[in-house]
């Protein structure tokens, strides 16, 4: 167990190192990165001055070293537009993004489990066929297109739900204002439904298929046949014997799921004008505000790597086979 954890921790460190290297060198791909930081009409003197100020005239390894030091002290440079620290801009918007991502994860996992079980236990019926067809569609459409369609139908034609804006929950919680968080809750959920479905639908479809196929696999195992043969109720066999074991492959992907959803937030937040990191990245792309894009990418990547570490550690406690190997 300890060896596994140490190995896993070392892996994480290597990956974080990789993230810093990649995000650092991405800047240098187009040659001298100074030109990304100055306006197109800048004079040679201005370019030289910026180059010296940002340290791009130093050798690469020195630049990388000061980049890593900056990262460790949470200094990722200033936004080129607002002149405020990029890290702060990203963190300000992180709560809104986390709300959306958590909602989407809940949507994509909690719904996938009953759908997958239903599909597996009714294998071959029209219900199963319908669910699988839905899953196939869910995995084949661009999520942002679904978002646009939801805005058009649910938001504009039926006028059931708001199509943009966000009501905060996490931010008041962080401020210690529990009252506001609670009163905001119903309205926050109303605002979350459309972007949450948009962000989560691909994962929902994939997870439903995954639960179904791992359920089918488990349902064919001898111990399930034994459980049925000894006369246990169908419900007990499905829930106690089959479902619990079919969850194992499912848990592994929850961590990866988070990263997948994080990469989806950029388009989803853009479609729904959600005031999170994704929308910040979209605006920064359009304004070529490099430090903000870089800060967001690095923060998302680190978040993802750390979450995967946590999921793996939790997972070893769930599945004894990993602990022993």
């Amino acid at each position, binding site marked *: 167990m300890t060896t596994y954890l140490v190995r896993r921790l070392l*892996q994480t460190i290597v*990956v974080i190192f990789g993230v810093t290297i*990649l*995000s650092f060198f991405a800047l240098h791909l187009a040659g001298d990165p100074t030109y990304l930081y100055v306006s197109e009409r800048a004079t040679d003197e201005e370019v030289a001055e910026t180059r010296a100020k940002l340290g791009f005239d130093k050798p690469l390894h020195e630049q990388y070293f000061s980049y890593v030091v900056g990262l460790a002290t949470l200094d990722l440079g200033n936004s080129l537009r607002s002149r405020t620290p990029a890290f702060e801009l990203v963190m300000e918007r992180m709560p809104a993004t986390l709300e959306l991502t958590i909602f989407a994860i809940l949507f994509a996992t909690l719904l996938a489990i009953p759908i997958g079980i239903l599909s597996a236990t009714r294998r071959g019926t029209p219900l199963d066929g319908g669910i699988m067809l839905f899953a196939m569609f869910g995995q084949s459409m661009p999520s*942002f297109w679904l978002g646009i*369609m939801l805005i*058009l139908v649910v938001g504009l034609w039926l006028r059931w739900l708001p199509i943009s804006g966000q009501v905060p929950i996490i931010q008041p919680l962080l401020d210690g204002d529990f009252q506001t968080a609670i009163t905001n809750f119903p309205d926050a959920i109303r605002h979350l439904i459309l972007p949450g479905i948009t962000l989560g639908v691909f994962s929902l479809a994939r997870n439903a298929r995954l639960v179904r196929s791992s359920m089918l696999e488990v349902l064919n195992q001898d111990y399930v046949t034994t459980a049925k043969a000894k006369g246990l109720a169908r419900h007990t066999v499905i829930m106690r014997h089959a479902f619990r074991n079919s969850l194992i492959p499912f848990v592994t992907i929850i961590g990866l799921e988070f990263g997948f959803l994080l990469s989806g937030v950029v388009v989803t937040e*853009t479609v729904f004008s959600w005031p999170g990191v994704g929308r910040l990245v979209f605006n920064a792309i359009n304004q070529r505000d490099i430090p903000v894009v870089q800060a967001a990418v690095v923060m998302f*990547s680190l978040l993802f790597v750390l979450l995967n570490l946590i999921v793996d550690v939790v997972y070893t406690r769930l599945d004894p086979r990993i602990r022993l190997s």
Partner: protein
Amino acid sequence: MIEQAKTTQSGALTATPADQGITRKQPSMWRSASASLVRARWPLLAVICLVTLVIVALFAPQIAPADPNRQHLIQRLQPPLSPNEQGESMYWLGSDGLGRDVLSRLIYGARVSLAVGVAAVAIGGLIGVFLGVVAGYAGGRTDDVIMRLADIQLAFPFILLAIMVLVVLGAGFLNLVIVLAIGQWVTYARIARGETIAQKRKDYIESARAIGVHGSRIVRRGILPNILAPLIVIASFNVAGVILSEAALSFLGLGVPPEVPTWGGMLAESRDQLLGGYWWLAVFPGVAIMITVLSLNILGDWMRDFLDPRLRGR
């Protein structure tokens, strides 16, 4: 085995009995594949859709009713089936905010989606298979280095890096293809490595090695043909995935230059017209993407089941 070694010694690894068996089996496999395709109906429909799409993309200039970039500001935002006052043809699928013909833009958009999808998967596949086979065949430290690189790439959401790289390099067809290709290689490398290791232990490879056939020749003639099947299945799913990524990146303005019509770009433009209720601008490009991706996914599912009958019905 002795016979194998003899033929290989004469320098013709292609003529080993193992390979002959494969060549002999191939026509019948193709036949049973096409028979199964027709029986399965959905995959057949998917193939028909994809073939139509390829034809449409190839002959876009001949098929498109209008120039996809010609603007008719007077006839902007016309609903589907409205007459074109130039008397050329109808706006079958309506016109956009600049009075451009939506159908023609869709037809030209197929070119970008398919070209990016196929090119990125081909390049990523080549890099991945090469690195995977090298890692699997060489083993040891080479294997370690290549696989650790793969782990690092898998350990964080790739599309974010793609965004970062495209912002720095600037949008454009080549940059887009390269970035998406880099996003693909790991999948191929892992599969190619696993299959190579499995093949390496087989007798025909060991005997070829024993008599001193050069490594690159063994890989080319002996290993590669035997590991292609699973890779082709993955490629089908990956083209679908790349088309979705390309649409998302185009939607963010990081795809090909804006004057080139793309499905993702059309969706991005439709967003500005959404509040006016101009539904056709958003519906058709999305449907086009969905049909393409759905066809590729159905085809991939079918190929996987066909190659591995144990999975049928899963």
